[in-house]
């Protein structure tokens, strides 16, 4: 593992300290709620970034994994009476199981083919959630009646998960855990192979690496975190619906990741902090807000394809003008290698 840069360490320490201090600064329930949702999206988009940004695999079923996590955990508690924490663990593993089932065949495909295959899987999951009425209660969704069991602490105290601050710290813990694991992976030898797969899959294959195993590993890890986020979402929001996990949701995650800056650790953090909180803070008509949101998105992609982080990192020079046009980004190339889809 490479030694981290001093600036990165300092930056993370400052952000983490600010995040820990945050509930002390405000006791406003609404602001805390927004902060929790932002942290949830940090988990979702950082993990999506692993497969999408670092490995450059255009898999669009992250929201489906998120939904599998949420529904599995909720159904295990409500139908089988399992303790929440156990159900959460099972839900995460179950999500990972599906990632392996879909990942092994689908990741042999590249570019548009992978996107469409994972899109079809995501749609099948949504159709299943919407129509398997006897289990998922269909489009009416599930009302979550259970609560998180309190965690006992030494000296007779406990974390009861009754206040929003408790949930905030749980969400913060999940976000930190996710970022730490993703950092550990991308800075390791495995991470360098993953990035190399994005840059030139054939070359990595020729160098003797089993590309499929690396891709499936990244896909699997990324799905585990989506399951983790899903298990948290259900009891926090106390209501889950199939439409929370549809194609619009994955598009939103992709947007957050990319506008923030793909293949960077800070990108999903910045993207979540701004784009997730934006709708809550901008109290305008929903229709106008979506129009503005679409416009921000189009302009970002066309003019700042490396997102906010890319903008901060380097001043724009003359050679940066062509970024986003053909061949300028390594992300562009994957789609060119059309039907030769078997790795």
């Amino acid at each position: 593992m490479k030694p981290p840069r001093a600036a990165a360490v300092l930056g993370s320490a400052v952000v983490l300290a600010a995040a820990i201090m945050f509930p002390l600064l405000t006791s406003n329930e609404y602001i805390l709620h927004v902060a929790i949702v932002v942290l949830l999206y940090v988990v979702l988009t950082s993990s999506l970034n692993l497969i999408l940004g670092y490995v450059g695999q255009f898999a669009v079923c992250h929201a489906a994994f998120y939904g599998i996590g949420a529904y599995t955990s909720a159904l295990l508690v409500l139908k089988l009476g399992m303790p929440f924490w156990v159900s959460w663990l099972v839900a995460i593993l179950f999500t990972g199981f599906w990632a392996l089932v879909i990942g092994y065949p689908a990741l042999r495909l590249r570019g548009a083919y992978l996107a469409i295959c994972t899109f079809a899987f995501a749609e099948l999951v949504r159709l299943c959630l919407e129509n398997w009425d006897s289990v998922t209660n269909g489009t009416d969704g599930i009302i979550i009646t259970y609560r998180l069991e309190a965690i006992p602490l030494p000296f007779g105290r406990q974390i009861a998960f009754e206040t929003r601050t408790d949930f905030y710290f749980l969400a913060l813990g999940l976000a930190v855990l996710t970022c730490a694991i993703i950092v550990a992976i991308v800075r390791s030898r495995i991470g360098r192979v993953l990035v190399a797969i994005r840059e030139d899959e054939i070359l990595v294959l020729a160098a003797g690496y089993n590309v499929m195993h690396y891709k499936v590993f990244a896909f699997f890890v990324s799905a585990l975190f989506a399951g983790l986020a899903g298990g948290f979402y259900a009891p926090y929001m106390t209501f889950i619906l199939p439409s929370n996990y549809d194609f619009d949701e994955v598009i939103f995650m992709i947007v957050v990741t990319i506008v923030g800056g793909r293949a960077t650790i800070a990108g999903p953090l910045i993207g979540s902090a701004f784009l997730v909180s934006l709708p809550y803070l901008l109290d305008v008509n929903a229709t106008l807000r979506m129009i503005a949101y679409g416009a921000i998105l189009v302009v970002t992609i066309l003019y700042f394809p490396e997102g906010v982080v890319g903008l901060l990192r380097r001043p724009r020079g003359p050679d940066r003008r062509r970024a986003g046009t053909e061949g300028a980004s390594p992300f562009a190339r994957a789609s060119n290698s059309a039907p030769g889809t078997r790795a």
Partner: protein
Amino acid sequence: MPLYVASLLVDGVIIGGIYVLVALGLTLTFGVMQIMNFAYGAILMWAAFITYALIVYAGFGFSASLAIALLTVALGGVVLEHLAFRRVRYDLLNALIVSMGLIAILENVAVAVWGTDPRSIPSPFSGIVRIGRVQFGQDRLVALVASTLLAGGLALFLKVTRTGRAIRAAAQNPDVAEAVGINLDRVVAVVFGVSCALAGAAGALYGVIFTVTPLMGGVPLMKGVVVVVLGGLGSVEGAILAGFLLGVAESLGGGLVSPILKDAFGLAALILVLLWRPSGILGWTLKRF
């Protein structure tokens, strides 16, 4: 029972015709630009609304309104290509995100202008057609004839005209196409305009048979994606064949097996085709058209 199956078949062929139109536009843009334009559903919806507005508010006839609507979305498509998609040509991921932004803009502008109530395009074709004992609305027959003519016309256009040859060349190899003097930018603009016009035709026909709402684009788009993959990305004949096949399969499956599983059939078929025959059921693309 045979009568029921026959009417299901007819329904399937008719809806399949609309799938074909949606898929043709998608497959053309993919063949030439290597991108999936997901904003396609929103363009389809706008064409339906423009047709509706011209008939209801401006009092134009059906054919005139349809022609104006197609021309408008074709021009709109050329403008969109020039302003946005040109910068993400051959870049699947960025193009997808650009189309998501465009969907948000186009759908919500439509909501702001027309609201979310479903409307129906009044059409002059209200009679009933009988073939033997099977009967169906005249509007459906018109939809089938229109989609067949458009699909056939497009295939002919690609095959025999100079522009059609240029489009096929650009799909085969953009660099060589440019080297032999084909203006790639113009070809792409034409392709975008044509594909938006096809989406427009599909939207207007869809609006005649079903209803027009700002969110109507999602379902035809999804079907279009399924058809494009089944037929092979970039394949025109494949899209035509797979469109009709999917329409019939869904209609039969929905009517005879289970209406809930209707959408699942197509998606499951799509995954299987991708895994075993990623170049589509015909196994050829625009590159070898």
